[in-house]
């Protein structure tokens, strides 16, 4: 499937494919049934234009036809037929009594909210047909039917140009969202999230380091409360958010009250999730055989012979190194001996099974009410979600409440507020890049090791067994992050002097975090008497916003002008205490700690002041233009560099409105072009520009100070200049809609915490260091393939191609390594992998250079490219071996509705990205301290020409040679995922009516059901680091889980 997909895309045979689909639809409407009587007529829209493709069906039958290009239809109907149903996706259904008529002409009315779709833009709304930038909208329908914790999850696979990577399958963990590639090299490349007009904090301020298992701060918004999401992709749409818009803007609008009356909804769902796959590891006897094979090689490579047994080392973890005489003795079960005396015939331990749940439960309940009374509209909701993680004690729960209220005091003045309150409780476990990580250490645990000694005490990692004992780590740890948030805005709108509108809003995004972590005295890191870390963080973000809009239509000219002023301040206070030595593991509060090891408090803040202006002009609905300018001042920059201006302009031409345009089937055709600049200041510290001397550099409990931040007063705004060329095409009144965009985004003055030679006294300095380019093409397509009155089939498809590359780095054309596996280089994309290049396996001695032979490299060892041709292999031979960016990615959703039954199938894919399997560097390498992966064991090198893929089983320094960071552990991460399948059934009205309910819908949904990939790890959709420079690393991440839920939706 994957190959097919990439083939059709690459071969360009894509469009013909779509056309075929289209022809099929036509055919399906041509089926004609036995007839008795003929009716004919013409169908037009409100403007009197002929409508093509309207379904005309005899009510309660499947007999029907479709109108032609001139809106004409002819239909044979049975004698007894009395009602005709006219339907079209873009228009409201109409039923007509036939009576004695043989000619029935119909005028259809536009379906509200479809063709004249309203799109939320920055500081306002616009009709879809008037949009000149690149904005994608997401339908939040179906959210209730899939377990969704965080709003960013909704973007996955749904929006062209937006790449979403789930960083971990732990509940409540974050997503990495890139809009049109990565545009900054410092820190995260997350878009700016604006919820009901409030730019929200998207930083995980938790003090607990749990090894790269981030929390999603956005989860404080219950996705069920979302009405719509808009993604502003190009600069002309996003520039109105100026200084923070470089990575795109995601506008989230929560639900508002309906028009009349009050409706109540109750939604409940429950289900479970599971690991999508297991990684097969070899059992004890095979493990021993293979490790001993490696030990044999070790001895024979060195011509060692067995000496005196007395020289054997007695490491409790087994024979993991050579003996005192240099000879490496055979590995035997160390636990069958003193002091452990375990049963030599015990069965193997499945460590992953011990620390994970077979089924992790998920459930969601939500009660909401919306409606209006008099001039007041409201939406209120209460929701709760509980998700267990796949790791035993991992869990997440959330309670959220929301009230959105708006009151119209008159036609000209209204006020309202929108407030959400949320409490999240995260039961956390260490994983991935932390020493006692659960997947990390338990996947590495050897099969003959056990968690408990015979006397019931723990086998301790590093002492008794090789790796941390996951059972011990989980049992002796209590780690929790509680998160209390208020997200609210109060606003007023006043209209005056015919066309003026004044909007004022005061908003707050408040967040209080309480981190607590207790490692008891029995925890591997809990010594000597237990350690409690208790940290509290208060984050306050206030925003004041005023805008004045003037709207006027003169003849064919439409115009609106907006000016505004914003001020925003973000403050964070944090304090933490580290208390140690508790009387016993039942004491968990610092009051009973013998000693305060460390206590800290800190404060930091930044502020942003903005003036904004925008003019939209349209002529006769054909020519559209928009200009915007934003000027931002940020506290992060030094005086003289504080302000940056971000202009943008866009134009649109609706060719289909021109008189000369004579294609009736093309109901809308619009060309768009835009240019704009946006800024970024996110990646840098609040005080990066100011050199500063800090305290805390103490000696003998006396205050010490030192310059800890070199500062850089020359820092200035990182700026992205973006060009966008787009096309919107609609055929047959919305039956087929296509949006295509090509963009070029150049980021200059890239902000970077540049590594510095430390002879300066510092290891890094924040600088504007270079430029980067993203070019891409993206396409979104929506078709209504079949639309009869009993069966509907719609398809949504999107695909994006983004090419990223660094175009300038100051001072150097050379490669700048980042971390151990990546590098920055001009001409290469961010996330470039830089390591040794494995060329295969040495098959015979003649191939091996002398220098390597002297290091005991032998046939069966890895052959690395000797880039500097010096005969040996070292870090100087690192070269570029791949990158973590996909060639293309996208999604495909099909929705089928038959009568009351609805089925939706959503696939997403990402092709061409490389993934570095950090875990394989541990368990694929024949290490006597580690487990061993089955596939590597089965396919290892066993003699000349046995394989060119996996080396021989070898221990000691040759093993270290073979396991050096190289593309041996780099895999193609392409995947196609059946992300979601939903099946829903709405009970007939008759039945629900009897239960006094307006609607009963039952549904079942499955997430991450299948993944098609060649990647040998749990899942190719991973990311250890949220930093784009180091993306594409799988280091024992918990994969996205496979889950199944059932539920119901009741309307009162």
């Amino acid at each position, binding site marked *: 499937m994957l190959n097919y997909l990439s083939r059709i895309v690459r071969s360009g045979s894509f469009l013909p494919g779509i056309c075929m689909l289209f022809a099929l639809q036509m055919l399906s409407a041509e089926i004609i049934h036995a007839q008795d009587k003929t009716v004919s007529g013409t169908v037009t829209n409100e403007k009197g234009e002929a409508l093509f493709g309207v379904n005309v069906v005899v009510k309660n039958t499947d007999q029907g036809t479709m109108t032609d290009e001139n809106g004409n239809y002819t239909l044979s109907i049975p004698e007894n037929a009395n009602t005709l149903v006219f339907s079209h996706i873009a228009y409201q259904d109409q039923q007509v009594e036939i009576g004695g008529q043989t000619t029935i002409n119909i005028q259809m009315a536009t379906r509200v909210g479809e063709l004249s779709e309203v799109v939320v833009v920055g500081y306002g709304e616009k009709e879809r047909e008037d949009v000149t930038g690149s904005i994608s909208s997401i339908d939040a329908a179906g959210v209730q039917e899939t377990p969704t914790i965080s709003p960013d999850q909704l973007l996955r696979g749904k929006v062209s140009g937006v790449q979403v990577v789930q960083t971990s399958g732990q509940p409540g963990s974050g997503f990495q969202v890139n809009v049109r590639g990565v545009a900054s090299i410092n820190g995260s490349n997350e878009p700016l999230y604006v919820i009901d007009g409030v730019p929200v904090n998207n930083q995980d301020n938790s003090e607990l380091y749990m090894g790269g298992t981030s929390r999603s701060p956005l989860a404080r918004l219950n996705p069920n409360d979302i009405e719509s999401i808009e993604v502003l992709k190009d600069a002309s749409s996003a520039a109105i958010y100026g200084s923070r818009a470089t990575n795109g803007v995601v506008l989230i609008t929560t639900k508002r009250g309906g028009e009349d009356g009050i409706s109540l909804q109750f939604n409940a769902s429950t289900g479970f999730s599971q690991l999508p796959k297991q990684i097969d590891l070899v059992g004890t006897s095979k493990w021993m055989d293979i490790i001993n094979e490696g030990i044999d090689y070790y001895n024979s490579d060195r011509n060692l012979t067995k000496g005196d047994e007395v020289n054997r080392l007695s490491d409790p973890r087994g024979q*993991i190194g050579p003996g*005192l005489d240099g000879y490496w003795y055979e590995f035997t079960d160390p636990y069958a001996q003193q002091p452990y005396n375990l049963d030599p015939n015990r069965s193997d331990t499945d460590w992953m099974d011990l620390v994970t749940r077979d089924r992790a439960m998920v459930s969601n309940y939500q009660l909401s009410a919306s409606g209006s009374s008099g001039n007041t509209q409201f939406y209120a909701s209460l929701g709760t979600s509980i998700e267990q993680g796949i790791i035993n004690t991992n869990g997440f729960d959330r309670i959220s409440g929301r009230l959105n209220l708006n009151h119209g*005091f*008159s036609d*000209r*003045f209204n006020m309202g507020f929108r407030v959400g309150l949320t409490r999240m409780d995260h039961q956390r476990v260490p994983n991935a890049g932390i020493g006692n990580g659960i997947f990390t250490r338990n996947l590495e645990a050897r099969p003959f090791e056990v968690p408990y000694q015979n006397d019931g005490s723990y086998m*301790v990692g*590093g*002492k008794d067994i090789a790796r941390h004992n996951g059972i011990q780590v989980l049992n002796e740890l209590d780690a929790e992050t509680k998160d209390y948030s208020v997200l609210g805005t109060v606003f*007023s709108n006043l209209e*005056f002097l015919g066309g003026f509108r*004044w909007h*004022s809003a005061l908003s707050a995004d408040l967040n209080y975090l309480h981190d607590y972590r207790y490692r008891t005295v029995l925890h591997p890191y809990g*010594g*000597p008497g237990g350690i409690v870390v208790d940290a509290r963080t208060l984050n306050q973000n206030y925003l004041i916003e*005023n805008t004045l809009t003037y709207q006027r239509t003169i003849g064919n000219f439409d115009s609106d002008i907006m000016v505004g*002023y914003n*001020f925003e301040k973000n403050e964070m206070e944090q304090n933490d205490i580290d208390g140690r030595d508790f009387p016993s593991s039942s004491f968990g509060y610092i009051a009973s700690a013998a000693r305060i*090891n*460390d206590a800290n408090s800190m*404060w930091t803040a*930044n*502020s*942003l*002041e903005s003036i904004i202006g925008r003019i939209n002009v349209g002529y006769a609905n054909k020519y559209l233009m928009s200009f915007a300018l934003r000027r931002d*001042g*940020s*506290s992060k920059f030094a*005086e003289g560099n*504080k302000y940056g201006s971000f202009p943008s302009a866009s134009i649109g031409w609706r060719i289909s409105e021109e008189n000369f345009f004579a294609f009736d089937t093309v109901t809308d055709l619009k060309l768009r072009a835009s240019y704009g600049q946006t800024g970024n200041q996110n990646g840098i510290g*609040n*005080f990066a520009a*100011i*050199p*500063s*001397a*800090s*305290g*805390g*550099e*103490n*000696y*003998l*409990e*006396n*205050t*010490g*100070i*030192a*310059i800890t931040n070199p500062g850089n007063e020359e820092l200035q705004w990182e700026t992205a200049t973006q060009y966008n060329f787009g096309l919107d095409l609609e055929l047959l009144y919305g039956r087929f809609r296509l949006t295509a965009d090509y963009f070029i985004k150049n980021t200059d003055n890239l902000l970077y915490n540049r*590594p510095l*030679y430390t*002879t*300066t*006294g510092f290891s890094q300095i924040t600088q504007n260091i270079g430029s980067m380019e993203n070019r891409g093409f993206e396409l979104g397509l929506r078709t209504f393939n079949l639309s009869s009155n009993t069966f509907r089939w719609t398809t949504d498809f999107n695909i994006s191609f983004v090419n990223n590359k660094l175009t300038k780095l100051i001072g150097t054309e050379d490669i*700048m*390594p980042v971390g151990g596996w990546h590098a920055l280089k001009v001409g290469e994309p961010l996330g470039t992998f830089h390591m040794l290049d494995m060329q295969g396996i040495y098959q015979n001695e003649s191939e091996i250079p002398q220098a390597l032979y002297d290091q005991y490299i032998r046939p069966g060892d890895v052959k690395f490219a000797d880039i500097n041709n010096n005969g040996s292999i*070292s*870090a*100087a031979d690192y070269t570029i071996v791949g990158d973590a960016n996909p060639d293309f990615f996208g999604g495909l959703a099909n929705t089928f509705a038959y009568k009351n039954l609805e089925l939706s199938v959503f696939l997403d894919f990402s092709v061409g990205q490389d993934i570095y399997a950090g875990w394989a560097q541990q368990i694929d390498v024949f290490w006597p301290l580690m487990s061993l992966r089955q596939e590597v064991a089965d396919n290892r090198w066993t003699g000349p020409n046995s394989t060119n893929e996996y080396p021989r089983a070898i221990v000691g320094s040759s093993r270290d040679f073979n396991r050096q960071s190289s593309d041996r552990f780099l895999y193609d991460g392409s995947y196609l995922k059946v992300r979601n399948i939903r099946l829903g059934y709405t009970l007939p009205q008759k039945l629900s009516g009897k239960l006094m309910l307006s609607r009963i819908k039952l549904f079942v949904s499955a997430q991450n059901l299948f993944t098609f990939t060649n990647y040998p790890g749990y899942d190719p959709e991973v990311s250890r680091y949220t930093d784009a420079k180091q993306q594409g690393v799988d280091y024992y991440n918990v994969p996205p889980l496979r889950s199944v839920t059932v539920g119901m939706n009741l309307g009162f």
Partner: protein
Amino acid sequence: MKYLKIFTLNIALFAFLFGCEEQLMISPQTSIAPSELGQQEVPQMLNGILHSFQNAPGQASFIMFDMAGGNTETDWDEYQEISENRIDVNNDLVRQNWDGLFEGLYRTNLLLERLAELDDNASNSEAKGVAHYFRAYTYYNLVTRWGDVPIIKENTREKVARDSEQDVWAFIEEELQQAISLAPPASGTSSYYYVSREAAEALMARVALARENWSQGESLAEGLINSGMYSLEDDYSAIFEKENTNTETIFALRNMMGEGNTIGRLFVDYGWPTVGSDVLEAPQDLLDTYENDSLRYKETFIMFDDEPMCTKYLGGAQGGDHIIISRIAEMYLISAEAKARLMDIPGGLDRLNELRQQRGLDDLDISDMDQFMEAVLRERRTELVYEGFRFYDLVRTNRAIDEVPTITAEYQKLFPIPQRELNLNENLQPQNMGY
């Protein structure tokens, strides 16, 4: 009309908000501008320097020469590379050592720059003495690890180039002369956590050995031995007990819990109350050196979980172990070696036997120079084990290849310049030969 009020309010809000440019001036409340560092901050800057030298080079830096000198055994990657003298150019421990020394140097240079602008009163002049000591200490560490290194007398952002080893040694001597003349005299045992004139003399004596200035080494060491301020302890293990003071220490970094490093983590076993990671173990070859030295052996190693565990840093992951930079026993050994080199083997033997008696060992009777040097080096190995001496002792006496099985080539007598540093500053090229 009420809308009019709201409207006015809106306008007022708007007007008020304009001109909040001063709201964009936010300064950190946990730090001050460097320009504000003045007279009042001198003691605090000194503390910042001590803090840096204690922490920034990394806990492994203090025993780097034990690792590279064959005193340790481990299967922890980067420690193993050093222990087996096959250091990768990307070794993080070596990099941290380099980076940390330059961090301390930056702070020291900054203090000297500030002091040059301040009054030359007594306390400022003492501060200068301390700063000169640390410059010498930095370069002694740098030159013995990396050979040619850039001499930075004033902080700079320039890409500096390397100076010759000769020049570096000359600079160290210059700095120590200044330190000896300016640093405050030691005042009793409680002051050995700060730099004193005596600390500078002790370091100068060590430098003299490296420079083969035997008479200078002898006179400095003898001066300290005869000063009456220091004496050999009866109980060897008392020197390393973190809670007690002792009569041997000339200068140590206090390394308090909460402000310091956890060097003990490297030695202490998981099962020990303070919990360590058990990174480094003593190789058999080291244990064998203690053949007739059972008292000191027992005080240096205790058997824990059937393995000898070093007792010099028992704080484990809890920390709090002080780190001795100079103590009087080293002066006895310096004096003994220097006397012998000045052809006074009997005099040297007296100093050596004095120390041995104190440690419960029999007197030696040696008249041959080679045998004497061997005895001094063995004594240095056991007496000063895990205090950061062994590797350079072997290098300066040209015995590294003979004594350490994993040192087989000349190039291994120096560490590689961290690759990161070479990548960022091409003026530091070329890499030390062989790496």
